[in-house]
């Protein structure tokens, strides 16, 4: 926490800046024809205590101009709803265990497109954000805070290794730039 009030808002590090490290799951634009639509980028906020908040990265299609979300569902299969996740005690027993590719929710847009948000990290599911069910626009207005998707608790032993398959902020920004150059080159 800063000890003096900052002069302008840009110099005050946000809550996320102060306590979280940003990691990204972003497919390189080359993998266009592989399962999964282009640019379905996720941003994982990892707290210094190893807890991960799963959010959409700025480049995700749902966060682009003109997209309207019709509906969000946590029912990812006939037998599994992330809303049924119940966690008890200090050791969070009973939590649904997630692998990197485990789906968290499905986002249905008014233009017919359907997007699946995945966990990106291994661990126990703590909670999914029910606020975005009632008001999907929050996801688009505040994707990094109130519009988070889920909270995951990795195993203590794996807290460092879970980010091995993810990109740092710098690497992510390079991927985004590459994509933009590729698009402008082809258009």
């Amino acid at each position, binding site marked *: *926490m800063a000890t003096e*009030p900052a002069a302008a808002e840009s110099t005050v590090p946000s809550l996320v800046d102060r306590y979280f490290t940003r990691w990204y799951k972003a497919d390189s634009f080359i993998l266009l024809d592989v399962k999964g639509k282009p640019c379905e980028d996720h941003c994982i906020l990892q*707290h210094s205590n190893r*807890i991960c*908040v799963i959010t959409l990265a700025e480049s995700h299609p749902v966060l682009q101009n003109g997209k309207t979300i019709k509906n969000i569902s946590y029912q990812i299969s006939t037998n599994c709803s992330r809303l049924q996740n119940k*966690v008890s005690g200090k050791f969070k027993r009973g939590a649904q265990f997630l692998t990197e590719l485990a789906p968290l929710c499905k986002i249905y847009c008014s233009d017919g497109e359907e997007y699946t948000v995945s966990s990106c990290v291994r661990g126990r599911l703590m909670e999914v954000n029910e606020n975005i069910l009632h008001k999907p626009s929050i996801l688009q207005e505040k994707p990094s*805070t109130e519009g988070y998707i889920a909270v995951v608790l990795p195993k203590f032993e794996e807290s460092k290794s879970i980010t091995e398959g993810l990109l740092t902020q710098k690497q992510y920004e390079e991927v985004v730039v590459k994509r933009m150059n590729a698009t402008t080159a082809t258009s």
Partner: protein
Amino acid sequence: MFPLTEENKHVAQLLLSTGTCPRCIYRFCGVDFHAPYKLPYKELLDELQKFLETEKDELISEVPNPPPKKIRLQELEDGIDGIDNLSQNGKGRISVIEDGSIASKNSNLNVCNVCLGILQEFCEKEFIKKVCQKVEASGFEFTNLVFSVSFPPQLSVREHAAWLLVKQEMGKQSLSLGRNDIVQLKEAYKWITHPLFSEELGVPIDGKSLFEVSVVFAHPETVEDCHFLRAICPDCFKPAKNKQSVFTRMAVMKALNKIKEEDFRKQFPCPPNSPKAVCTVLEIECAHGAVFVAGRYNKYSRNLPQTPWIIDGERKLESSVEELISDHLLAVFKAESFNFSSSGREDVDVRTLGNGRPFAIELVNPHRVHFTSQEIKELQQKINNSSNKIQVRDLQLVTREAIGHMKEGEEEKTKSYSALIWTNKAIQKKDIEFLNGIKDLKIDQKTPLRVLHRRPLAVRTRIIHSMETCYVDEHHFHLYLKTQAGTYIKEFVHGDFGRTKPNIGSLMNVTADILELDVESVDVDWPPALDD
């Protein structure tokens, strides 16, 4: 006045001849006043022998010339070792113990077959002096003491055997002997040793004393004496986690209460055999019960954890509130270690202002415990002079029971805070005025993400009793709040990803963050305020 009567003669003779010491003989004869036990061993032996001598006056009248000393010595040794001789000759052999000096010399060498020396040398002045020397060398300050002594479990087995023997003998005289008619070994031991301790150390024995002197005896030679009990009563000897041997005093006593007399006599000699050596002293230890010091602390640093912050053996931040206070106490009370607790706590970057937060420190095994209130005041001054990061007040000694008041405060009492808030949108004075009017606002807080790794996931309802604002500039204002105990203030301000609802951000429809937090008061009226 000699405590034994005609009635006790047979039993006394039987016990003495089978190797039992005078004090144990008294116990089995139900002598339940202190004075006889306190006499010196030699005197007890002489008196006993004189008492038993009259028995064989009848024998002497039959034998015109008493056999020479040499032969008698031989017979004496036989008499003491041979149980069979007893049953054959009855009193005959025993009454050979007529020459006091020979008898006492031999009896002094004999270790009592019941108490294994506990009521022989280990209750006498020389041994007690040795213990007291150790006590004095340990450097404890004390005005009274409690003495605890631990005997090897085999003693219970031998006691049981002696009881069966005596019971049988008395049965022949149509007398009964209940377990409770016998004076307990530990009781007699304390009758003798307590006055000796008091005299040597100059303090009274008090069962409630916090200062404990403990002596533990063992008898390695007879450790296996108890083992036969396991075969007969296996359920008494279940192995417990922290115990080295499964043959504890409790377990052995339990088994002795269960076992049938015939089964016992088959496995264990009645009377018990005479051991070669006396007990060994396993340990002589002193310890003082914990004392408690309480007070209130202020924290002026935004870089100080309450407890040491160490990850993977590496210290992340220098010092801590608990160390800055306790290190001084540890030194002055000469304690082994401490336990710090307080009525709630604050984060590293939060200051504690106002009257401060109540705390209590348990000082474990203190060597020094008596302090005047002046000395405590000076100790408080010393702590305050040594650091500007913390200050303490109302430092005082308290009882263990008083600590409850402090923990009560943690859950029930209100706290007040002041926070410096930042907003992303530009604000005017009028935008924050409405907060002043909100009373007893109910908020729901999910377990904050920053502690979720070590706390259960839950929703806590808390009350913000009142708020007061103070405008600073377009993006800042001070917020003073009075809240229920257990409210997470930081999360109430920034919302914790919307998991605390409502929050300052949602109330004002902005993105808010907290730049500084201070605890203004912890509304617990304990410990009692002292005027300086």
